[in-house]
């Protein structure tokens, strides 16, 4: 840079005008072929990410919608247009309602394991204890770096109802653990626990960071007034950290149902009698086990609609609490 331009910059910074910036130095306006579009050369920065997202997310989503109107088995050259028949098939199948019920149970249990528990734990570690914070953060976050298949296999053995270590220790005190992989609802609880083992730590450190950043004065004042711990949590920390809380809640709903796919596949394969299947696993099952491409596609479209609905609901709830507080 020529030293004279420093003076120019000072002047420009106080009164920022684009022509002044251009006057700061001789800029040969090189126009390249790729700059000749509405975004200018900027398109080159967005294109790499954009190409991948369009090719492997946006276009496939549209294509899935298209496939949901056809009867097809993914290999046959013959695709038959059937209109809304696949949706009728899905919505009149009692298995769909069982799977929807399971999906609701998954969402409730995942919210308890991956939002409520890390929220309380983050509160405890931030405000109620003053040692081991570093160790607790490291230990809780570590499983997030371990393969879900590894987690599912280890827990399959740890919780084996006859030969596993947990069953053998409990047998000493006369407790028999149920055959959870063959018991409805219980299998969902175990699968959610294994998922929480991997995911909880991420939510915990996110909430911990948010709570550590809260104003110490407010907390200190409340403490001097002798407010009990549970009210400190409910009335002060919870509302003050609700932005991060909302982020954790939304991500849990969106990613949770997908994360549980791996433990379902490894531990129960959707059984007993569809008892651990959810919308995600069922769509996989229809597509790659029984080869009903159109049915799987229509299930996926319904899943996407449900996700959008849940997100809208979550954001609406946030907007309502904001209004209620102002």
């Amino acid at each position, binding site marked *: *840079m020529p030293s004279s331009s420093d003076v120019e910059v000072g002047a420009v*910074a106080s009164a920022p005008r684009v022509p002044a910036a251009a006057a700061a130095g001789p800029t040969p306006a090189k126009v390249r072929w790729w700059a000749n579009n*509405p*975004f200018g*050369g*900027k398109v080159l*920065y*967005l294109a*790499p*990410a*954009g190409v*991948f997202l369009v*090719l*492997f*997310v946006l276009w*496939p*989503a549209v*294509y*899935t919608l298209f*496939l949901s109107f056809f009867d097809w088995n993914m290999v046959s050259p013959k695709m038959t247009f059937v209109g809304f028949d696949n949706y009728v098939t899905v919505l009149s199948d009692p298995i769909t309602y069982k799977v929807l019920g399971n999906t609701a149970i998954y969402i409730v249990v995942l919210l308890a394991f991956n939002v409520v528990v890390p929220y309380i*734990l983050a509160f405890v570690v*931030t*405000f*109620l*204890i*003053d040692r*081991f914070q570093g160790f*607790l953060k490291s*230990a809780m976050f*570590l499983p997030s*770096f*371990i*393969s*879900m*298949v*590894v987690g599912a296999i*280890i*827990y*399959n*053995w740890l919780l*084996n109802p006859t*030969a*596993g*270590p947990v069953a*053998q220790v409990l047998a000493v005190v006369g407790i028999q653990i149920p055959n959870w992989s063959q018991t409805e609802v219980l299998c969902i609880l175990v699968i959610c626990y294994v998922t929480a*083992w991997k995911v909880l730590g*991420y939510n915990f*450190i*996110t909430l911990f*960071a*948010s709570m550590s*950043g809260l104003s110490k004065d407010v907390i200190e004042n409340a403490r001097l007034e002798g407010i009990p711990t549970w009210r400190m949590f409910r009335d002060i920390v919870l509302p003050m950290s609700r*932005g*991060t809380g909302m982020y954790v809640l939304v991500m849990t709903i*969106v990613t949770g149902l997908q994360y549980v796919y791996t433990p379902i596949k490894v531990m129960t394969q959707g059984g007993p009698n569809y008892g651990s299947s959810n919308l*995600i696993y069922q769509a*996989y099952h229809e597509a790659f086990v029984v080869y009903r491409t159109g049915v799987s*596609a229509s299930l*996926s479209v319904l*899943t996407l609609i449900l996700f959008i609905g849940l997100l809208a609901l979550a954001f609406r709830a946030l907007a309502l609490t904001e209004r209620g507080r102002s």
Partner: protein
Amino acid sequence: MNLYPAKASRSWTVVALIIAVIWLFPILFALGTSFRPLQDVFANVVNFIPIPPTLENYAKLAGRLDLPRVIANTFSIAATVTLLKLLTAFLAAYAFTYFEFRGRNKIYFVFLATIFVPFTVTMIPNYLLIARIGLGDNILGVILTQVADASGILLMVAAMREIPYSLIESAKLDDVSDRRIMLDMVLPLVRPQLTATGIWFFVNSWNEFVWPSLILRSEQSYTLPLALQMFVSAEGGTDFAVAMAVSVVTMLIPVVLYLTFQKYIIGTFTGAGIK
């Protein structure tokens, strides 16, 4: 910070430490069991401390599986995916943070919205596409779809927003080219977050199961999480100690990366969360 009397604090400390031990236990259990002879494992499942330790499970594993090949597959996929994702995310985040252009917010919204699309919505078309271009049972077919992930853009935008904008603005007024601003100013400043994001991408790709399990069919092209499935049966199975050895091999690199870089990693993830 300690709000309440020492006695309450002590009991909370104990509760938190117990939860942490429960969280670490499966990892220690797998590690210990992988070094125990199989007959001991079945004779006493509760004690997992390997005295004396044996390498027989690892030897069996090496005999049953082309381990170097499987590790090479897993590593090539994870490394390529990581580099491509970092490159695409960095460039896109730079444009979203520092350029003004028509429809910027709309495009940003569409990019980030892809994070919320469940994988079942894209799996059939992607499967058909990968098969049609002849990449079925090929690690390239696994790499391509994994690069399509906007979470890196979110993390890099968060990192770039922490850089004081006046710094970039004065460089722009000084007529420094975008390329130089990007490579000589922004890149060094976001290097910690870039490193952490890269490790996160690498580990996630290393652990990825769903998509590889649809694409990779032959043992030749297996990754570690897929190979792990070979040693599993419904009841835990007679190969249980070998399965623990594969588990240890699978988690070794991610855990070492985490323990080495945890300061960066925890800092980056807590920085990106909406406050």
